[in-house]
């Protein structure tokens, strides 16, 4: 009875529930119609908007990074980075099948650069997979910290400044995957274009130096038809 009533209700007014309730099938996962940015009225608009765009076309980097008018830039950067870290967990999971502390004993991309893991009180030398986990955990901690990011509507300048160091450290995960686990990297990149998006993101907002973006994105890009940006 109740179910019927609610179904009827839904049919008449068609309220859209933008939630993946427990038990949602893969097919229905995130299958709700898009909404205009102006019409979104939750406190998580920016995240919702970004995720909606990514679902639509993850390869359209330019459009993804195109900030809506009147949007606070700090929040925009924050939400993007948050999204990157979330998706990067996918890469980390894949890496776990191939990257072991015994084989990749150090966090390195090219031989020249071996990095310390900054997640500890005193930075130390962690194996690549541990570096990946620690860094993603650390990033998640920072980005969810009530102290630095108490609100997702406005963000203090001092907290925005913290995003740079997260980018710097997170990027090393990409470069390690690219140079040492190319197959996994390619597989992942084909689906998500994450490294491409990330590279554009840090370049656009000057969060990293171009010379340090050592993963050549043009390779990945060339495989995508219709992508003009190199």
């Amino acid at each position: 009875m109740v179910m019927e009533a609610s179904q009827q209700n839904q049919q008449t007014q068609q309220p859209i529930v933008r939630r993946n309730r427990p038990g949602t099938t893969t097919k229905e996962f995130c299958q709700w119609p898009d909404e205009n940015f102006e019409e979104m009225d939750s406190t998580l608009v920016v995240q919702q908007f970004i995720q909606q765009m990514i679902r639509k076309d993850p390869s359209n980097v330019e459009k993804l990074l195109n900030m809506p008018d009147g949007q606070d830039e700090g929040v925009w950067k924050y939400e993007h980075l948050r999204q990157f870290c979330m998706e990067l967990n996918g890469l980390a999971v894949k890496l776990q099948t191939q990257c072991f502390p015994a084989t990749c004993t150090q966090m390195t991309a090219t031989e020249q650069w071996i990095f310390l893991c900054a997640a500890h009180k005193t930075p130390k030398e962690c194996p690549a997979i541990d570096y990946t986990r620690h860094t993603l955990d650390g990033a998640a901690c920072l980005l969810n910290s009530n102290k630095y990011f108490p609100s997702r509507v406005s963000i203090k300048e001092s907290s925005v400044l913290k995003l740079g160091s997260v980018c710097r450290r997170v990027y090393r995960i990409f470069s390690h995957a690219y140079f040492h686990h190319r197959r996994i990297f390619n597989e992942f990149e084909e689906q998500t274009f994450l490294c491409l998006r990330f590279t554009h993101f840090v370049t656009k907002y000057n969060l990293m130096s171009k010379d340090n973006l050592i993963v050549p994105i043009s390779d990945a890009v060339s495989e995508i038809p219709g992508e003009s940006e190199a």
Partner: protein
Amino acid sequence: MDGLTINNFFDSDGGFDSGNGANEFVDLEFNYADSDTHLNEIAELYSYTEHNEFQLNVKAFEDQMEMYKLKPLWQQLDKDQHQSIILKLIDQLEVLDNTMRMKAARTLLYLAQGCWVEVQSDDEQQSLSRYNVMMLYRLGVFQAFVELLNLEIENAATANVAIRKIAVSLADSVDLRVILSVLYIITEVMRAESERTDSEHLDLVDAFVQEISQPLGDELLAVKLLGMITRFCSGSAPHFPMKKVLLLLWKVSLVSLGGTETLKKLKNEYREKEGLPVITEDTLEVSRTMRASSPPPTAGNDDNMAKRSRPFRRVRNIVISESLMKQSSLDEQEQLGMEMEAQNAENEDYIPDYYRQFDDPMNGDKNGMMHNECELNKQPSISAATTQHPTLPWEPKVRQKDIYQFMDISRRKFIGYTLPDNCETTAGLPNPICEGINILKRHLYVSLADIQVKREEEIARNPLTKGEEEVPINPTEVLYQAILPNLPQYMISLLKILLAAAPTSKAKTESINIMADVLPEDMPMTVTQSTKLGIDVNRHKEIIVKAVSAILLLYLKHFKINHVYQFEFMSQHLVFANCIPLVLKFFNQSIMTYVGSKNIIPIMDFPSCVIGEQPELTSDLVIGDSEPYSWRNIFSCINLLRILNKLTKWKNSRIMMLVVFKSAPILKRTLKVRHAMMQLYVLKLLKMQTKYLGRQWRKTNMKIISAIYQKVRHHLNSDWAFGNDLDARPWDFQAEECTLRTCVDRFNNRRYFSQISNAVRFPDQSNVGGNQNLGLNANNCDNSIFNGIENELNINNLLNSENLLEVDDHFELTKEFKNNYEAWLKEEVFCANPIDWNEVLNEPNLVLINEIKNAIRYSTYFMKSG
């Protein structure tokens, strides 16, 4: 002396001899401020022996630029390139290879220093430095360097090398000094920026202030630095460059907590919140318009000399002192001290210019300060020139307590009984008394501390209804909570360093060697070099004293307005660590020499030492600058005097320490420095102990007494000079300190239960943190009732306290209990609840509280049911 020119040559160990006499009669045009000029503050970061290392920074920069295939000319690159380079360098700061890391660090240091190779003048260097620092900060260099500092602090290899060495030198702290220098430059540039009114970087400054006022990672930067100081003092890290650590700590605290202006603003803000009138008087302002008193003539000379030269007087004096001895209530030892003092003072009568001392500021002839020499044999002119202070410089004050006291005495006298705690009714009191009361009330001054103390008392009385209190979180509160667990160690360490840096200390007898970051690996070979090193060492010590004194004063001031018991906690630990005698020892030197010291070689200061054509280092070094005094030394002196004032104000037990340690002659000599503000603080210190110094001292030091009348704030009906004060009875002193301690402990236990319990109860495992904290926090709800439980001594209080569930001290056991006590014994004592020792070991606190709770519940149950 080959090639050394010395401005105003002086003998660094001897007195400020008569050749320099002119200086002694001119008021010092010294302006007290939160810090010296930006240029000087930057220059003081480096010791002269570090001179060679500047070139390493350029080298690192050039190497890096070569790596990037760019010309090593920073100014020719555009902003994007700047950013890109800095970002690359930051990346390099996190690589495993230490040489790579330090190369990047040095390059960044060179940028922070303002790329001095490319500039022509100091101004250019400063503006480039400012530009670079702002960019460095925006790109996250500060945080990256704090992490680097963490890494370097824990670098066991360098520590082990340093511990095993006999003589630790500059070379042992190369990396640490680079890191600390970058952090210091950023902090200092930010501080200077915050003082600019036209700054376009205010958002960055704000962000910076916020960043350092909060824990970076898991630790406040200030706490990290304090930790470094403690480790240094414990001997486990002799290579830590203390000067840089202290300077950074000072600046970080200054920027985060705020200087004089912030203090003034906060104080009035807090006062308004409590409904108190705002304070308009500004100590700095008032003392700036004051004129310095001429010092007591013999004050500067060696006391013994003066004594010997007047044998006749001496005989008479002893007679006088002996007759005095009989009247005095002070013990013999102090009496002896006074006697000596009396002799010295008596001798002053012979000095011809005696009468011109202490020119009355009310007569205020404006030229007087310049031309005192001309007046040498004249009486002070009573010319009615323009007056700077038509009235007394300070608004007089009255404490609530004084009014009560006055009314009690009057009532007892005129009505014959007292009405405790009533200052409203004046019934039965004669008119003049009422008038007096009105005047007292008009000048009534209620301090923030009074209000805070009263609130604490109320909370202690009604812990359940009043115990809930919201503690506002501000930088001071954050700092206090962070240093609370180890505050005693921090204070001891700071004082140890102060002691080691005091000019009177002998380097060899000290357990800690604060010279590690100034002494080069190779000892100097030529006379010039060793003179230079001598000056460098003295300069180094002076800068350390400056930093320590500034840190202590800053903390005391901020804690005082934040909560008086935070202040009392810190000051009690300073007193326990012998701060009072230490400061007195510091002043027990040739103070004029110290104030006029010229431990500076301007050409060696940064940036002069690197900009433009460099002269041959062996030729023509000019020592000393054109100033007649040393800014930093007067600054330190005033800081130390203020600290002493803060510690002793209204505390009879500590004032007694001033007397016991014979501070009067030392302070009197300090009056020789002709600077109104400094003299003011000395006079305050003398004023508070005058009543203990005896009649003879007063008699021979009438000039000081009148200077006190003129310059120090009056407390109406305060009997400061004649010792009839009831509060000043010596037998109460210990009790006073103990009561204060109890109040402070209660305050700390109530507000910071979780912070202190680890340190107090598990001093060996204060690092365990996490798990224990969780367990203890769970008890926080019990905390307001059972506050103080973690202090074993307080358990008795707790059990006896009437506040607790109305358990009376003298209760009668009920019949019920008497009849059933065997059952109670059996249940509660013999078999029930066998103690779970594992639990006790894990959480002694919880178990203890539960046991006591049960016991109380049980006994009240039996009492009530009867």
